[in-house]
């Protein structure tokens, strides 16, 4: 068929605030989260966990549980057919504990029963005899004893360099939980041939797959990990929780098995953000130019390695922040203790370090009697500069000065009307005297690496299939709510020139790994893979048919359609599959020097708070930001990431902390672990600073993490400004203000 065609730009391409393709099911209640799954004949699983933080297991007695009516299986470590441990970076965590328990809540046995109540009762009926041992709960003691997952040492420049002005500080960051609103859930279905299909919350299906088949002791192709609706992640799904347990139970019983953690179990069943202790020393000249930065950072990794080695690396590599300084010494320790394991959470090590370096920059500004933004501007790291810690030359864009200037240009609000009680710290239920309210303003900057680092082979596979209807993008990447399906759709539309693009998430047997939905990487990585696949497919088709354009009508040559999509696909859909990699990264040397990172982004935050110093209450009035986004592929969605990220940063600044007592979690529920609500939500203005990056699709940079990194120190700085207190710890609690 031929005919003339008029070039119409695609709708919903890059740069537009398009609607999410998963939006309609989400607003109608039809979106299937892992907890919504059902299979005929399905059993329910439950987990028996350690009641102590450290101990020797003398005996596990499953007899009583197994004898309960409705119980089909009770499994312990002896039932692990393959590798008895798992772990993302180091397989050091028992699938089920035997011999020893190393943290409170560690899984010891799992049950499958006809209904969830029976499963829970049976788990509780398992007799666990443990000789309790003193837990190692202090990470400093752990470091002294050499109980360390990784020590990273950075030495750059002259150790003897000195500046005219010296500020020192000690800082702490409490343990934050990702607290995604959907708890861990999954369903495993045996295939009847010794294999199993799993639908469970995940950020990285292929990493789950690898660990699962090893522990089950089956061939890789006998396990298929499927994508499923995930109710938020923020790092908590990068490590597995119930995954191997579900597969073991399904294989043992020959029936589908479902498990859903309740909120309390979710708190114990996933890794958390590493709490931090940090010692800093900054030396500068009178004009504010940084001369030397020294830091020691201890992160508590808890009982098992999880991603501690990458998290402590990040904390150390970004210990200085987005600043130029030639003389740097950093020691980072990821401690191994008997606290609950810590792993990935949005910001990944950079969050903790940022609280340290930004607190220091404020101290330095105060000592120099200099405007805090001016001090930061004078030291701002930019494209072409060496990163202060590693010496890596920043090759792509790094608009640090621009984010500072854009932030400064956002107007500062007037004082709140104290007549409206809702404007007062503590809201309507409390008794703040309007005359006591003190306003404060604080600033912070951050820098974060994007995608994986340190010589990791960070690859990402994607496929695009041309059909008579348009195109289908296929990937095993995990959409966890951030909008990946939407951004892939936009990229494919623009790259192919086609309006009808569907994004299909597939299982591990159909396509290669897309890598993790973490490290702000999927827009750049899966987005990059989709772009490459689409561009190559388009070129291939145009070359084959001598066309000069591809549209919904088909291949076009000189304004004439020379082949419709149906004609192109006469002998079947045309698939093009690619593997995308970002520029190579490298391990650092024994001094932490080298080029470990693929890309960087900076952000700046300004917080405005009202504080009632008498009651210790804080109301965060606004958090404004300017963020380096490369190219904005979907402005509304980026704003959603920024606003959501700021709320998590605010949470860490003033309310969120897991409280441990000798390794035992005291507040594993939403009554005692406080999450920010609507009433806590500040107004946010965001300015997107667009300087295209090196290798992301259309110059895009990942945007998920920066909002969470510098918002915390900005809020704490604002509280310091309002109160004059030192406030060396996040979160700031009322008692820190009232009884400093």
């Amino acid at each position, binding site marked *: 068929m031929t005919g003339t065609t008029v070039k119409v730009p695609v709708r919903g391409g890059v740069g537009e605030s398009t609607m999410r393709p998963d939006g*309609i099911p989400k607003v109608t209640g039809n979106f299937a989260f892992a907890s919504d799954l059902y299979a005929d004949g399905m059993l329910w699983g439950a987990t028996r966990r350690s009641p102590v933080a450290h101990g020797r297991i003398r005996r596990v007695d499953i007899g009583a549980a197994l004898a309960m009516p409705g119980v089909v299986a009770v499994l312990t470590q002896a039932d692990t057919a393959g590798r008895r441990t798992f772990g993302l970076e180091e397989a050091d965590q028992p699938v089920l504990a035997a011999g020893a328990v190393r943290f409170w809540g560690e899984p010891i046995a799992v049950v499958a029963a006809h209904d969830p109540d029976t499963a829970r009762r049976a788990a509780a009926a398992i007799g666990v005899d443990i000789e309790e041992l003193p837990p190692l709960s202090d990470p400093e003691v752990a470091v002294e004893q050499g109980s360390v997952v990784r020590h990273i040492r950075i030495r750059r420049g002259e150790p003897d360099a000195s500046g005219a002005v010296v500020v020192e500080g000690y800082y702490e960051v409490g343990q934050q939980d990702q607290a995604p*609103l959907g708890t861990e859930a999954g369903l495993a279905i045996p295939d009847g041939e010794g294999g199993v299909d799993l639908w469970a919350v995940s950020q990285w299906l292929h990493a789950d797959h690898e660990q699962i088949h090893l522990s089950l002791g089956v061939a890789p192709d006998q396990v298929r990990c499927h994508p499923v609706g995930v109710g938020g992640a923020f790092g908590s799904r990068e490590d597995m929780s119930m995954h191997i347990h579900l597969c073991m139970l399904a294989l043992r019983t020959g029936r589908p098995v479902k498990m859903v953690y309740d909120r309390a179990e979710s708190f114990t069943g996933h890794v958390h953000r590493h709490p931090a202790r940090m010692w800093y020393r900054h030396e500068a000249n009178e004009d504010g130019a940084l001369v030397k930065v020294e830091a020691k950072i201890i992160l508590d990794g808890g009982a098992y390695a999880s991603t501690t080695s990458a998290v402590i690396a990040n904390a150390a590599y970004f210990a200085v922040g987005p600043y130029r300084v030639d003389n740097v010494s950093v020691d980072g320790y990821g401690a191994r203790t008997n606290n609950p394991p810590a792993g990935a959470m949005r910001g990944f090590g950079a969050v903790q370090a940022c609280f340290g370096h930004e607190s220091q920059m404020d101290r330095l500004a105060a000592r120099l009697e200099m405007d805090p933004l001016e001090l930061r501007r004078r030291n701002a790291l930019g494209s072409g500069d060496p990163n202060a810690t590693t010496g890596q030359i920043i090759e792509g864009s790094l608009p640090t000065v621009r984010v500072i200037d854009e932030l400064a240009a956002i107007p500062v609000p007037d004082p709140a009307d104290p007549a409206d009680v809702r404007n007062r710290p503590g809201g309507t239920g409390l008794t703040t005297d309007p005359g006591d309210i003190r306003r404060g303003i604080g600033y912070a900057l951050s820098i974060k690496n994007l995608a994986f680092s340190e010589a990791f082979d960070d690859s990402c596979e994607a496929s695009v299939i041309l059909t008579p209807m348009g195109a289908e993008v296929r990937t095993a990447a995990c959409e966890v709510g951030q909008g990946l399906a939407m951004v892939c759709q936009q990229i494919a539309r623009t790259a192919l020139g086609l309006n009808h693009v569907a994004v299909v998430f597939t299982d591990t047997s159909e396509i290669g790994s897309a890598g993790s939905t973490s490290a702000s990487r999927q827009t750049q990585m899966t987005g990059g893979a989709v772009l490459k696949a689409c561009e190559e497919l388009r070129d291939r088709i145009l070359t084959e048919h001598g066309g000069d354009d591809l549209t919904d009508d088909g291949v076009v040559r000189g304004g004439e359609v020379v082949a419709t999509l149906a004609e192109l696909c006469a002998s079947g859909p045309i698939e093009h599959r690619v593997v995308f990699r970002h520029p190579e990264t490298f391990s650092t040397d024994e001094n932490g020097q080298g080029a470990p990172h693929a890309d960087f982004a900076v952000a700046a935050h300004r917080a405005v708070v009202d504080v009632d110093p008498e009651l210790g209450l804080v109301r965060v009035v606004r958090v404004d930001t300017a963020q380096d986004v490369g190219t904005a592929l979907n402005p509304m969605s980026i704003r959603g990431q920024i606003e959501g990220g700021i709320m998590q940063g605010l949470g860490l600044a003033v309310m969120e902390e897991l409280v441990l007592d000798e390794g035992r979690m005291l507040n594993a529920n939403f009554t005692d672990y406080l999450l920010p609500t609507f009433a806590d939500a500040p107004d946010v203005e965001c300015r997107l600073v667009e300087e295209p990056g090196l290798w992301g699709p259309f110059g895009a940079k990942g945007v998920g993490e920066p909002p969470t990194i510098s918002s915390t120190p900005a809020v704490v700085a604002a509280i310091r400004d309002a109160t004059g207190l030192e406030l060396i710890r996040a979160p700031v609690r009322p008692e820190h203000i009232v009884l400093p």
Partner: protein
Amino acid sequence: MREEVAFRLNGHDVAVEVDVHRTLLDVLRDVLGEMGTKEGCGEGECGACTVLVDDAAVVSCLYPVCEADGTSVTTVEGLFEPGGELSPVQTAYLEFGGTQCGFCTPGMIMASVALLAENPDPSEEEIRYALTGNLCRCTGYVQIVESVRAAAELMMERPA
């Protein structure tokens, strides 16, 4: 103790014989298979399980199912007939970034519907105040407030 509980669910009569101590959320999800309503905490703190009972928003995870006897219950599934049109609140959440992971969304939407029924033209402050019992971990709430404002405007433009 088992008892028969009968109520209208999204315009249809349902009757179930259940343990009286079960919650409405449990019965909706596990007995009736209506999975649109979510459980985020099971203890009244997050609002993910919000449904309407006789037009009032309740957290169904704390609501004894026997209390629902003789009432009319509306869940997110009741706002939209397959093949029909999205309600204004659903449309606004979709267009204004009110949903990300979507786990809070059904509860958030039901709380918004209850608010707008009572106050068709709420200010931003009134929206925040009315929805304080609903947690969202993804959005930072700003685009949810914008979605509810947009829904109010949509509804005022084209009254039901």
